[in-house]
């Protein structure tokens, strides 16, 4: 579903190019669970951002669902966000002014999902993530793990085909982190949602099916995780 060819990203300052990514070429298939790993500053997040079309590569081509999306009109990109891509962030990035329920509802509103359908989907998600009792609370009334659950529920609300997660457990305690990773795995296995996550943790990476190791902007290893 994702085809990256020779992706490069650099910033130039005073005539010197600072490479963040070099010659990244890879394919991610439907239903894969990919973990991008590497030391700080290796370009993991940049790669994820490029996958999420939040940044444009300086060079190279990117095909999403067989369509060239290297440079995309804003309208078209929003279309993809509404229907295909769900984001999960390290800092959760819930909207502070909205309740749990409204946060999950927001993408459906943008997608113009009808009221009844909306209500049933949200009820389903709240139920699945065990946060029914919290639906009228605001994000700052929740623990970090609960906030991230809401974040994932929101990402799932629009029924995306891929979830892009930037260190989804980076701010969490290990117990909560495990819960989140289990959830990702379940989503991947049971619902076939493609997941790409950036992580520092070897342990978290083991939940996935494949690991991309990046260092200094270059893909060093591409390992398939042996299923346990």
């Amino acid at each position: 579903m994702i085809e990256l060819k020779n992706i490069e990203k650099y910033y130039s300052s005073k005539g010197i190019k600072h490479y963040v990514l070099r010659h990244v070429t890879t394919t991610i298939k439907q239903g894969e669970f990919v973990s991008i790993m590497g030391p700080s500053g290796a370009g993991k997040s940049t790669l994820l951002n490029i996958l999420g079309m939040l940044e444009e590569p300086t060079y190279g081509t990117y095909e999403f669902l067989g369509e060239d999306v290297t440079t995309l009109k804003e309208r078209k990109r929003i279309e993809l966000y509404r229907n295909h891509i769900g984001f999960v962030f390290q800092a959760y990035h819930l909207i502070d002014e909205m309740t749990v329920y409204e946060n999950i509802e927001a993408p459906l509103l943008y997608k113009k999902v009808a009221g009844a359908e909306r209500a049933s989907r949200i009820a389903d998600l709240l139920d699945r993530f065990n946060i029914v009792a919290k639906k009228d609370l605001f994000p700052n009334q929740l623990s970090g793990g609960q906030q991230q659950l809401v974040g994932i529920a929101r990402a799932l609300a629009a029924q995306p085909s891929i979830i892009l997660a930037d260190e989804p457990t980076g701010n969490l305690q290990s117990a909560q982190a495990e819960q989140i990773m289990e959830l990702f795995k379940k989503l991947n296995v049971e619902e076939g949602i493609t997941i790409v996550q950036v992580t520092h943790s070897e342990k978290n990476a083991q939940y996935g099916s494949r690991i991309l190791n990046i260092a200094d902007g270059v893909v060093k290893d591409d390992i398939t995780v042996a299923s346990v």
Partner: protein
Amino acid sequence: MFKLNLKIALRNLWKNKTSSFINLIGLAIGLAACLMLLLYVSYELNFDKQAKNSENVYIAMTNVPGEGNKIAGTFNGTTTALGPLLKQNLPEAKYVARMDYGKKSLIANGQNSYKKDSKFAEPDILKMYDYQFVYGDPKTALNNPLSVILTESTAKTLFGKTDVLNQSVRYQDMENLTITGVIKDLPENSSNRFDFLMPWSFYGIVDASAKDLNWNNYSFVTMVTLNPDVNIDLVNKKVEALVKASTPQNGQSQPHFLYKASKLHLFGKFENGKSVGGDIEQIWLFMGLAFGILLIACINFMNMATAKSEKRAKEVGIKKTIGANRTSLILQFLTESMVLTIIAVVLAIALLELMLPAFNQLLNINLDISYFNTVSWVGILGIVIATGLIAGSYPAFYLSSFNPIQTLKRRISSKGFLNVSLRQVLVVGQFCFAIILIISTLVIYRQIQYIKNKPVGFDVNALVEIPQDGELKTKFDLFKTEMLKSGAVTSMYQSSVSLSHRGRNFMDVKWEGMINPINTVMFNQVATSYDFIKTNGIKLLKGRDFSKNFASDTSAVMVSASAAKVFGYKEPIGKKISIFGTNAYIIGVFDDYVWDSPYKSNNPQVVYLTSGQTGAITMRLNKANNLQSNIKTISKIAKAFNPAYPVEITFVNALYQEKYKSEKTLGILSNLFGGLAIFVSCLGLFGLVAYSAEQRTKEFGVRKVLGASVANLMQLLSLSFIKMITIAIVIAIPISYYAMGKWLNNFEFHTNISWWIMPLAALGTLMMALLTVSFQAYKTATSNPVDALKYE
């Protein structure tokens, strides 16, 4: 979606209480000021427009020829002969009605007597203005000469009820009139207001000059309703031709033209016979003020919103990644500003209702929120929507343009340069406006003071006048003897007009050694009695006052210094002049004094002695007695002479105070709204500083731990704002200097812009701003650094 937006907008308002409060108060004040001024403007704009066909009602104007082929002046007085001429020969004229200017006259129901505004008019006036008859028939109400139409409130004052048809009232203690109509009170914003209206035919009985058709007494008003859709230029050509054909033409002939009556109030200034504006300029000024204050409030909103952008940026970023497009974000931000504006307008209307009585008292008018008609309400709705849009648009477009990845990474500073500078521009603009208003206020105040302090040419203190009514007209000499005997006054005289007013304008004057065959300078004449100069104390430059010792004084005149100058006399005493063909000798020259407008020099004046022309009695109080007892004595004697009339004693200095009214209004309004503008600007500044302090709490904490003093920190926070105010001062001073210089040039007598006004305004604003900023800066700077550093 909209419901959610609304909910979130309200939550946001509630969450950021300081900024919501500042925005709300600012917008409410801005809107209230705007509504109040618009109320005033709509009152003024609807002047004389109450009648259905007011668009077709015209008033005959007269051009006064001046030197060269110029027109020296234009006024709304006409002769008695013009009306009938137009009625018979102008087919476009539907109705023609002659009127007098109206004056205060006595009207009595038995012992119950009052002085009320009276007017004489021809019956057509009832068709021109659709007065609402409560009782009586408009078709016949003015047919009988001895009839009168009362307004409801007049009927109530006289009879205690309004159902008074066919009852009789006594006019000026000389004639009984039958009430043939009672009409609803006339609106305040009408030039032809009266408390009772009498037929023109009765005027002919009271005043012979109204009866005969003449072409030389311009003391009457001619109103004409033209057929709809006529071309006024063509009609005016016809009018000119008609008048030319029926009057002898010479250099003093005064051509007439018709002018829309409803325009006279606001477009009443004529130059060379052409309308060149008038009070409408003030209306524009007030509208500018109104929208200026509103704009300041809008700028506050924009500044606060963009200052908060860092906070909002995250929200924008998230929303974009979950599929929000720009339109939906813009809509969301606009919803927020609209919600705020709507709350503000409710507050504003409450404020307006609350402040209106005080405002009315200040301006001495009677505004009411009901002056807003349906159209105005639609207009207000428009203003609200426009305000919401203007206030919300910049934040909406600005915030919604954020790139999600940058905002989520908290890296918007790279793009922030332009945004900060625009915010600065807005703040500078706000304060520019405020400073210009302060300077204008000061200059207007100085100008009023200057005119007030300018000597009027005589001692206005201890000088009183009473109208010369009833018995006082015929028994003046006896009255004078009694008064002087009582010791309340030291001297007194009667004259055709009050000392503070213009007498009759005329040009028919010839003098010895005249160069031109005919005089083209407008003169002014006042008829008086003995002791003119002795009483009023005008400076006598040459010669003497009228005196009983000279029997020949009946054909003597005193002239003003400017008249002597027009005549070209070095030694004017004893020179012969001829007025309307009657010879007179100059016995005295007095210094020019102030009458009519205190802002310009007056035309030359001739004062002559006659007992026939009565108008006002002027008296110099005896300073040996106290004021109260003097007034009491005068009242007693006047009442004894003239029992039918109430005694009205007016202090001449009060009459002169009256003359500053329009500039005083201007002064009050610019004071009031200038103050508001500064307040709202400071409110915005406070919000910005508060926000910037909040953002820098951590930085300040660190700095304090590193050893920065409170003063260091205050300086850090205040300096950038003070810089903006300074720039505003630098821009505002030349603009206001130029604008006020132009305004002052409108007056023949005007003060100069004193050098100290500019620094005073600048320092004042700077102080206000410094105070605002320091308050917040001090609060932040003295807070405990631990509190700040605990976060994160």
